């Protein structure tokens, strides 16, 4: 393929009849704020799939759509359900699992930071991971911590011994930082978890 611009002849971009839609309805062009495009597109495509026949779509549908996407809802059952029988266990549906409960122990003291770089990969912390920092935890030797060394944030493993405090990376290619007396060190919080999205 060459990228030379054609001056005449051939196909013109954007020309011709527009693609049809699968919405079983006439459509219209609307102007929306950029940050809402994704959610509105999502809404419309869900709508097309689920309620193609529905003639009137109200605000309540939009709200329902948003609500459905606000919480992660994985019902947890206490027993297996036998097919065919209405199970008595259905009365005992317990609280839905929420990843926040799993990752966050103390809501008021929890903060998130994003990691760049590879100095902690052997501890399972990769580039672009979001770390969960719990400030209510007291730091101990061996904890992964978010430290503030001379006014810069860094994530390392903390070790404290008679010799002094060190910040150890979890990557063979990096060397440990022995914190000198004249340096200022503050342990900002203890890293208690990490989050990563693949898609």
């Amino acid at each position, binding site marked *: 393929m060459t990228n030379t611009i054609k001056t005449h002849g051939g196909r013109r971009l954007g020309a011709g009849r527009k693609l049809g839609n699968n919405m079983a309805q006439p459509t219209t062009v609307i102007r929306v*704020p950029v940050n809402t495009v994704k959610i509105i597109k999502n809404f419309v495509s869900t709508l097309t799939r689920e309620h193609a026949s529905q003639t009137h779509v109200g605000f309540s549908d939009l*709200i329902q759509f948003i609500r459905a996407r606000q919480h992660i809802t994985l019902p947890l059952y206490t027993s297996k359900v036998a097919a065919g029988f209405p199970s008595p266990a259905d009365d005992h549906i317990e609280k839905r699992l929420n990843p926040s409960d799993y990752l966050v122990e103390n809501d008021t*003291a929890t903060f998130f*930071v994003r990691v760049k770089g590879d100095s902690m990969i052997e501890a399972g912390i990769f580039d672009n991971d979001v*770390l969960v920092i719990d*400030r209510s935890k007291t730091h101990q030797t061996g904890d992964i911590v978010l430290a503030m060394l001379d006014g810069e944030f*860094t994530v390392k493993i903390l070790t404290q011994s008679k010799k002094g405090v060190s910040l150890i990376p979890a990557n063979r290619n990096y060397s440990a930082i022995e914190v000198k007396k004249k340096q200022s060190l503050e342990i900002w919080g203890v890293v208690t978890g990490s989050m990563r999205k693949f898609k």
Partner: protein
Amino acid sequence: MSRSITLVDCNNFYVSCERVFNPKLKNKPVVVLSNNDGCAIARSEEVKTLGVGMGEPWFQFKDLVKKHNIIICSSNYALYADMSDRVMSILSEFGFNQEIYSIDECFLDLTGFQKDGLTSYAQEIRRCIQQQTGLPVCIGIGTSKTLAKLANHIAKKNGPFQGICNFNAMTAQKQNKWLHKIKIGEIWGIGKQLTPKLRQIGIYNAFDLKHASPEILSLQFSVSLKKTICELNNIACVELEETTAPKKQIACSRSFGVLITSFKNLEQSITLYVSRAAEKLRQQNSYTRSIHIYIRTSPFNKKESCYANSMTISLPEQTDNTLTLIRFASLGLRKIYRNGYKYQKAGVLLSKIVSSKEYQPSLFSKKKSQVKSDNLMIVLDQINTLMGKKMLTVAAEDITQPWRTRQSNRSPGYTTNWNDLIVVDRFI
């Protein structure tokens, strides 16, 4: 039993919030500016020492900024609100009753805790807030709110207290020594107008006021002054209010980022402010009967011609409907707008507010259409709560808003936006 009312107050709250997330601000002079980068609304200790006053307009201390490398932050209210929420919720676990007095201070009732043990309990509170949020606080304890405030003031201004002043644990002699030091204007509830009047009759400090006659002074001034005197004498008169009373007035106003001249832009800004005010109105389940709008040019710019005008519109019936309010605000604006001026500020004030219980529909109201429009408001608020502010707005607000408030140095939403998280990328 004598009370142990405690006031916990964050030190230089806005500056401290910024410092938690930006280590480069530590031990440096930092000032946080109000909306539109107008005035100093929070100052670090370093800046206070340099003599920058609270609320001082930015252009007045511009030279100090250059000379001392003062770091300027625009206000980041989303961050401050989240940090405040964290502090208040941690504090709620320490006391039986809590009154959130403002974004950075709250009263706790610790009555029943041992007098001496209370100081170490307060130290624990302070340590806990510091560790979990990174914010420094000062704590004052007294037998009344007024004395708790006063103790807090002492703790804040005097280093040796290490942030905690338990007035109840002091001997009477020591208490008096401190009361002598507190000037009359520094007492809670004694304002700028009252201060010179009290001085005239020989009341200069908290000790003088404590020993003044409440009966005589309440005749001469007001009942609230009598309460203050009682409170200084260890009689708690002002109880903790755990729920805030609905507001009697709701205001929304801003200075513009750029001076604006066109009617269209002014109308857009007024529309935005009405929307915000109406939202607050509905949040507290109230209706308004009157809307006041005002516009003005800059009072500081002597070269340009000045103009300021306002208008109060009585509404035909009580309403909480954004669209109705915008219609009337727009009509009012048309009346007071004059061509050819450079406007710097506009604002909206809703008054004559009544709660929904006292709502009286007018005899001739067009009920059906109104119900439809009111339902629209409910949906509007729901969507905006669920999907974030400003998801749905009235089109007249204009999406681009070129006149929007100037905030050139605002910090990221560290705790409220996934895209604004602190990035840790130092390998060292």
